[in-house]
């Protein structure tokens, strides 16, 4: 299928690049207002304790300090997306080291820091629940004693420290194991990793005389934050306005409420604008990093490599609050199935409370953890059966028109092409070129999150176009992609389009920059707006030119027909003089993906919309002495549906792989007795220019019927497969199978040594 296009499908530079390279682009962390105070948050040192007393009197008297607030100063509200289990400030119980206890506002950051140090905290430590095993042990202390009384989504399966158990059941897994010749049981663990955005979370709040609070924040979800903040402040949502000036990276870490509530409460108390911004220590101890996971996978297979059954369980440490956990545990079950045709399934995902930070969503939440387990096991199976890992995958992958695990019918399935092209590119036939060097492959699937998006598109009197969207640009160039779709359909140039975005008062609703959906959904909303605009434009042009509408065509910013011509600018001016201007409201909501409801329980994400498919292949060497890994080549073949902006998509792949290699090789938030040991960027090791190899991208294009021009979501997938691809390549190079993340040199060296003895 070839589409002739002018602007989509081309690697045009992103629209906001000039502001970003000249330093004029404004981010929330840069935002300031006259008279602004600086807020800070006092956080618990104890992972689990009874809060006895907070004495703020000395802090409040310090010079420059304008407010000190503790729990009694804020509305007694419990909030949360799926379980309402969290308060702004701890009242009587401390549930993690890092939990907010008090907040201060002062005339300088130094004065605010001094105020924090002057607050006296008296608490009685309790036995902390340190990990999932401790939380699930018989008689384990309850992280939330009143869990049963909390308001929660009725669909969730909750039980004491488990705030959701999501399940998929297909066929009869026991019968499937009977049909198998071999059964493989493996256990894998992964560590918590931080999104690592370079811009700290930041918010500036200001109240006006009408009782409206405006918060400039770097949230990915302004409309969700509006709702949550209104709930916390006990206000109608219309009294809360969220504006996103600009975001310095999010990757899911800026989905949930960050500093907005502290800024709003301190601004209310002081009558002054207040800015609150996190430190690196706060980010690594008290943000929303990826959940650590334990994964157990039992898979039945025939001797010729046909998968007959899988029983798998994945336990997420969700920390002190449910947060994203119940949803991420749901998505995990779809990832445990993998992109494979397995007739019998019993898959469970658990979100488990512990006394740690509220682990959250990080680019393809649940993807890397589940994929590391199931794709590592595919290689274990292949090795045991004497099969080529690529052939084992090709034998079992889902094909066009087949069912996904919950019964959704899969279309636009480009997986075989991804696997074959990635394997060819890496030189798969020579999989173990020499001792200590090997190649690994891993594949997966992922969703394009649905939800709704609205845009207003307006033609300016000079013929340029304003695109007004509720979505925020988090750095992916998704709004450049949406604008390319708009320019394509409207017959204008990309340079003619200006974007206004992410202001809950003035922009139309958008479900937010999450789940690889922005270019997909906003692009589709633009298409709807253009359809409406074209009707308006042609009707007006027909009247103006005296030509029947059917004889008119929209071409390069003009309307032409029967030898006559007018411009969009002229029509906009006519409309402004006579009809209020040319403007359209375009909307899109992803159509529901039908699935078999009998197969799922406790599930908040039962099917993948317009799923994408991908394969990663790595070629690496392992130093036999030190265990150090050198990646020679890394290839990604990703089915993107249709590449709206190929260079921007390749940028997503390169960055997603770099982040995934961090999780695979070096990154881990290290806990000891409930406290983070490496809460700084020296000891939390993100990849640098010296660590990331060149990434080769292959864009596979099997267009989906739903996405604009066939596009699927592309942002999250590249983050999924790196841990499994690396683990498989290390096993290929050394024969040593590492089943825990990260795969550090130390771990590899010890495994090599253990095997030698």
């Amino acid at each position, binding site marked *: 299928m070839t589409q002739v296009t002018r602007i989509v499908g081309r*690697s045009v*530079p*992103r629209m*906001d*690049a*000039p*502001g*970003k*390279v*000249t*330093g*004029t*682009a*404004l*981010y929330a*962390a*840069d935002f*300031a207002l006259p008279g602004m105070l600086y807020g800070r948050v006092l956080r618990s040192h104890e992972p689990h304790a009874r809060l006895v007393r907070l004495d703020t009197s000395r802090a409040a008297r310090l010079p420059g300090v304008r407010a000190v607030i503790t729990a009694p100063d804020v509305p007694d509200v419990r909030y949360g997306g799926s379980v309402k289990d969290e308060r702004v400030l701890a009242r009587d119980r401390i549930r993690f080291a890092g939990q907010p206890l008090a907040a201060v506002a002062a005339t300088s950051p130094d004065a605010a820091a001094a105020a924090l140090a002057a607050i006296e905290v008296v608490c009685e430590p309790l036995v902390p629940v340190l990990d999932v095993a401790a939380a699930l042990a018989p008689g384990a202390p309850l992280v939330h004693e009143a869990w049963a009384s909390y308001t929660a989504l009725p669909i969730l399966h909750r039980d004491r420290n488990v705030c959701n158990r999501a399940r998929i059941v297909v066929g009869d897994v026991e019968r499937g194991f009977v049909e198998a010749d071999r059964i493989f049981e493996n256990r894998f663990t992964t560590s918590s990793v931080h*999104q*690592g*955005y*370079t*811009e*700290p979370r930041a918010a500036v709040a200001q109240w006006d005389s009408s009782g409206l609070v405006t918060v400039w924040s770097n949230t990915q979800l302004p409309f969700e934050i509006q709702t949550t903040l209104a709930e916390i402040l006990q206000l109608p949502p219309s009294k809360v306005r969220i504006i996103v000036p600009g*975001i*310095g*990276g*999010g*990757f899911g870490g800026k989905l949930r409420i960050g500093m907005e509530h502290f800024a709003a409460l301190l601004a209310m108390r002081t009558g002054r604008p207040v800015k609150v*911004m996190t*430190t*690196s220590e706060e980010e690594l101890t008290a943000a929303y990093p990826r959940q650590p996971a334990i994964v157990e996978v039992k898979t039945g297979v025939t001797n010729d490599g046909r998968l007959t059954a899988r029983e798998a369980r994945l336990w997420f440490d969700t920390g002190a609050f449910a947060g994203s956990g119940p949803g991420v545990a749901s998505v995990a079950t779809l990832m445990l199935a993998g992109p494979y045709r397995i007739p019998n399934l019993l898959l469970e995902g658990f979100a488990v409370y512990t006394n740690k930070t509220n682990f959250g969503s990080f680019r393809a939440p649940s993807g890397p953890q589940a994929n590391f387990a199931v794709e590592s096991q595919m290689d274990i199976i292949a090795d045991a059966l004497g099969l080529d890992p690529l052939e084992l995958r090709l034998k079992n992958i889902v094909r066009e028109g087949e069912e996904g695990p919950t019964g959704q019918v899969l279309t636009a399935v480009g997986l075989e092409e991804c696997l074959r092209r990635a394997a060819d590119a890496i030189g798969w036939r020579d999989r173990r070129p020499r001792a200590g060097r090997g190649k690994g492959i891993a594949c997966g699937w992922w969703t394009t999150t649905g939800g709704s998006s609205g845009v207003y598109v307006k033609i300016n009197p000079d013929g340029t176009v304003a695109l007004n969207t509720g979505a925020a640009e*988090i*750095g*992916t*160039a998704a709004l450049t992609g949406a604008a390319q779709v708009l320019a394509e359909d409207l017959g204008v140039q990309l340079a003619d389009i200006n974007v206004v975005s992410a202001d809950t008062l003035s922009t139309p609703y958008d479900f937010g920059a999450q789940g690889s959906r922005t270019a997909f959904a906003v692009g589709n909303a633009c298409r709807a707006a253009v359809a409406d605009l074209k009707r308006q434009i042609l009707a007006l042009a027909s009247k103006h030119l005296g030509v029947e509408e059917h004889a008119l065509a929209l071409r390069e910013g003009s309307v032409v027909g029967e030898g006559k011509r007018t411009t969009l600018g002229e029509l906009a001016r006519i409309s402004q003089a006579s009809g209020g201007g040319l403007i359209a409201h375009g909307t899109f909501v992803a159509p529901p993906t039908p699935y078999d409801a009998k197969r799922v329980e406790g599930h908040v994400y039962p099917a993948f919309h317009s799923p994408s498919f991908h394969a990663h292949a790595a070629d690496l060497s392992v130093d036999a002495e030190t265990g150090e890994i050198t990646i020679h080549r890394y290839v990604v073949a990703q089915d993107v549906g249709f590449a709206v902006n190929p*260079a*921007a998509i*390749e*940028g997503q792949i*390169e*960055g*997603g*792989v*770099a*982040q995934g290699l961090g999780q695979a090789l070096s990154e881990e938030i290290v806990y000891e007795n409930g406290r983070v040991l490496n809460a*700084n*960027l*020296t000891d939390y090791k*993100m990849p*640098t*220019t*010296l660590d*990331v190899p*060149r*990434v080769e991208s292959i864009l596979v294009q099997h267009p989906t019927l739903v996405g604009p021009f066939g596009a699927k979501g592309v942002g999250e997938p590249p983050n999924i497969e790196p841990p499994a691809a690396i683990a498989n390549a290390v096993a290929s190079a050394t024969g040593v199978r590492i089943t825990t993340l990260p795969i550090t040199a130390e771990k590899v060296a010890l495994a090599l040594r253990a095997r030698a003895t």
Partner: protein
Amino acid sequence: MTRIPLSLIINGQTHEVLAEPHRTLLDVLRTDLGLIGTKENCLEAECGVCTVLLEGAAVNACILLAAQCQGRAILTIEGLAAPGQLHPLQQAFIDHGAVQCGYCIPGMILAAKAYLDENPEPDENGVREALAGNLCRCTGYQRIIEATLSAARALRASPSSACRETAR
């Protein structure tokens, strides 16, 4: 606390400020002078988003006291090119798709400039080492490295395109 008078030569212009002796150059640039192109993050010289040039050398403004810069020439991203113009590094970063969220980019470009000023004919390894102190979480660095190498070629072809060298 006593404030001391400081004379800072920023982007070729002398700025007189009063600042407490413990305040960092980053804080003074952003808070007192509104030069927000220099970014703030880790505040312990690990991430590089605050990179500026001090007498032509790349430094982390977050751990440099403003008082240490008394009378010295500082280049921030705002001074890299004349208003309305782009330095070849800036143009190359746009053309090569080296920018995503962009928060690390001002520091990255200035670190690259300091390196290219000393190494007009760089290779990929040299660029990788020069930029190792600047974290980027979006791009995987590939296009940043390509852009830097491309800018080096452009600068060699047309040295005057580097615009005014305000801080040298």
